[in-house]
């Protein structure tokens, strides 16, 4: 790698000392030439000579003098023509050309200047004036040279910077605007960034099928803003893929950014975790202006307020991972944006502002056009300008679980590989239940069987449902019918948090039994909680039609598993999956 040269290292270009130089004298008069040569040598200059225009050009070509003194009237080629040729030969280098002339008329002096002369020196020569002029021109040429070398260096630096930025931007774009942003129910516009604007949009699907979306805005612009996007995106995707909860992901992102970013760089962000299966959305907003949940049913606009300090400022002990929970219906729309849209400024120095933004929602009649209308309102407001650098908007539409599809990766692993015959029993007691999510770890164990990886999402969904039921309805004794009203919905999640914190007794036991064959397999998940259970016998065979137990997601489970059986007092559930020849 070449060593970068700092601009501060630039110095005056070498070559010319302050007042002496190599000077070409072209004059057809031997006497005048000799006289001038003597004066110049006495003053310390180096001198080369020519006796006509042609020779002047030849000598210039070979000797490359710093200053040229040209007699205006010479045989073969006069000074005017020679001056033009010399200018061409000199190219970018500034070579002062001074005409020597006994002509006195203004016209002929003008001609000297028009021909590319920088000055003229009347004959007979006055050695004081001659020295003054030469000193001035030599200094000027020197400045010119310094300026040129600085310019060249700046151009080189700028080229390198642009090259580096271009490469960095390509990497950044891949990392920062990635995941499943291209899903059918997501629309986004991120300003075409000529430079990095520090905005990051990420979207991914968890193993249980939740859609998680993050819009972040790093302080500053340029590379300093872009650099934090890498660890942010990596943490987000790798934890999401492994099935970690929103809270765990928020904590890890904050800790990572806190550890690596300088104190004055942080990331304002909003993160939404949308569970289409259970129609629940959880939102964490740290430092971004109010985002919006738009209700399809009654066109209300629910602001999603910033409740937290942005990522990267607090250490993990004081980081607050609490989230707002919302019930969502199909066609509800989530709008996320950074402050760029509020701060977009038109030519009258007016900002677009929150009022105009929310005005779009008030005037809207067709929800499916909201996204375009926001963009249009902004473009109209900015009128003569293209959308400014910083505007990022993401819209996510809630869909029914069946309509939410993302590209699935190909079939992994051979059916016979990995552990084939095993049982795992894992019992969680109160202190663990209240602050640890065992699901990512358990999923990790299951996908050690390569064949099961292909069904990781489905298994994780079942595992999540069963574990949530055991914890919320069994151990915590929460009543799912609470969730039927919006007020009860909030209350449900508040109670859940409260009871978890105070949990003193209760347990959940999770068992996996796996048996693989050459062309199939059989996985049983048995979960037993210490709760009171429910009267499953009364609803047996008709569970999916019963509203009261719809909260247990049994319909969903039935659609995935080969069988779901309750036993005991309704506190033991057994789910099995069969594949291939085990079916």
């Amino acid at each position, binding site marked *: 790698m070449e060593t970068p040269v700092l601009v501060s290292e630039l110095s005056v270009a070498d070559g010319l000392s302050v007042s002496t130089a190599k000077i070409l004298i072209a004059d057809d008069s031997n006497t005048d030439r000799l006289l001038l040569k003597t004066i110049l040598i006495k003053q310390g200059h180096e001198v080369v000579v020519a006796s006509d225009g042609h020779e002047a050009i030849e000598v210039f070509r070979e000797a490359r003098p710093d200053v040229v003194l040209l007699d205006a009237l010479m045989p073969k080629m006069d000074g005017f023509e020679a001056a033009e040729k010399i200018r061409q030969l000199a190219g970018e280098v500034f070579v002062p050309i001074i005409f020597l002339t006994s002509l006195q008329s203004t016209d002929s002096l003008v001609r000297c200047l028009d021909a590319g002369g920088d000055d003229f020196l009347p004959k007979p020569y006055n050695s004081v004036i001659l020295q003054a002029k030469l000193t001035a021109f030599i200094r000027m040429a020197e400045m010119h040279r310094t300026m040129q070398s600085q310019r060249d260096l700046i151009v080189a630096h700028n080229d390198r910077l642009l090259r580096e930025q271009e490469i960095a931007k390509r990497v950044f774009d891949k990392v920062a605007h990635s995941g499943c942003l291209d899903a059918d129910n997501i629309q986004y516009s991120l300003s075409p960034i000529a430079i990095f604007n520090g905005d990051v949009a990420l979207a991914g699907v968890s193993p249980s099928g939740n859609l998680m979306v993050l819009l972040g*805005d790093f*302080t*500053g612009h340029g590379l300093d803003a872009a650099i934090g996007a890498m660890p942010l995106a990596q943490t987000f995707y790798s934890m999401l893929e492994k099935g970690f909860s929103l809270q765990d992901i928020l904590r890890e992102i904050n800790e990572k950014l806190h550890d690596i970013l300088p*104190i*004055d*760089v*942080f990331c*304002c962000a909003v993160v939404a975790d949308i569970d289409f299966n259970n129609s629940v959305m959880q939102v964490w907003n740290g430092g971004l202006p109010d985002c919006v949940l738009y209700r399809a049913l009654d066109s209300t606009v629910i602001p999603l307020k*910033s409740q937290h*300090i942005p990522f990267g400022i607090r250490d993990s002990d004081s980081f607050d991972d609490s989230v707002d929970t919302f019930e969502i219906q199909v066609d509800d729309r989530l709008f996320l944006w950074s402050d760029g849209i509020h701060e977009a400024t038109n030519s009258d120095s007016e900002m677009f502002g929150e009022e105009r933004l929310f005005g779009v929602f008030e005037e809207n009649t067709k929800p499916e056009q909201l996204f375009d209308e926001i963009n249009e309102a902004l473009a109209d407001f900015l009128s003569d300008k293209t959308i400014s650098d910083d505007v990022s908007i993401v819209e996510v539409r809630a869909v029914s679980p069946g309509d939410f599809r993302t590209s699935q990766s190909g079939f992994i692993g051979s059916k016979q590989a990995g552990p084939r015959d095993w049982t795992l029993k894992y019992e969680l007691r109160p202190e663990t239940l209240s602050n640890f999510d065992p699901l990512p770890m358990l999923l990790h164990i299951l996908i050690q069987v390569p064949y099961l990886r292909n069904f990781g999402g489905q298994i994780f969904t079942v595992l999540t449902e069963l574990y949530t039921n055991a914890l919320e309805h069994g151990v915590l004794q929460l009543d799912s019918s609470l969730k039927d009203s919006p007020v009860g919905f909030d209350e449900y999640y508040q109670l859940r948090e409260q009871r978890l914190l105070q949990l003193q007794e209760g347990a959940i036991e999770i068992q996996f039994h796996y048996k693989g064959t050459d062309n199939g397999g059989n996985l049983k998940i048995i979960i037993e909680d210490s709760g009171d259970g429910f009267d499953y016998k009364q609803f047996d065979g008709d569970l999916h039609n019963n509203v009261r137990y719809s909260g247990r997601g049994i319909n969903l489970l039935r659609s995935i598993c080969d069988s779901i059986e309750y036993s005991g007092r309704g506190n033991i559930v057994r789910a099995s999956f069969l594949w291939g020849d085990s079916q």
Partner: protein
Amino acid sequence: MSVSSSLSADEKELRISIEGRFDFSSHSEFRKAYEDLDARVDSYIVDMSGASYLDSSALGMLLLLRDYAGGDDSNICIADCNDDIKKILAISNFEQLFTIK
């Protein structure tokens, strides 16, 4: 934009006053205001009465001051903010990090 600062008579409190836009251009001036001090200061007042606007890099500068002043043990008051500035501080929930008056 300009930054000025003055010490209280007992040299325990430093008042840093911001005039005009508080943004990245005030970075070095703002740092100088608290770093080039001989006195040992217990508390800081960032006087915003003359400030018109503050951007995210200014929030970063406030975090630098907070770190310099002892992080969680620092005693910094951001005083006399106009409504716009108050709103920006509120969105970032900086009232959890600074005293805002």
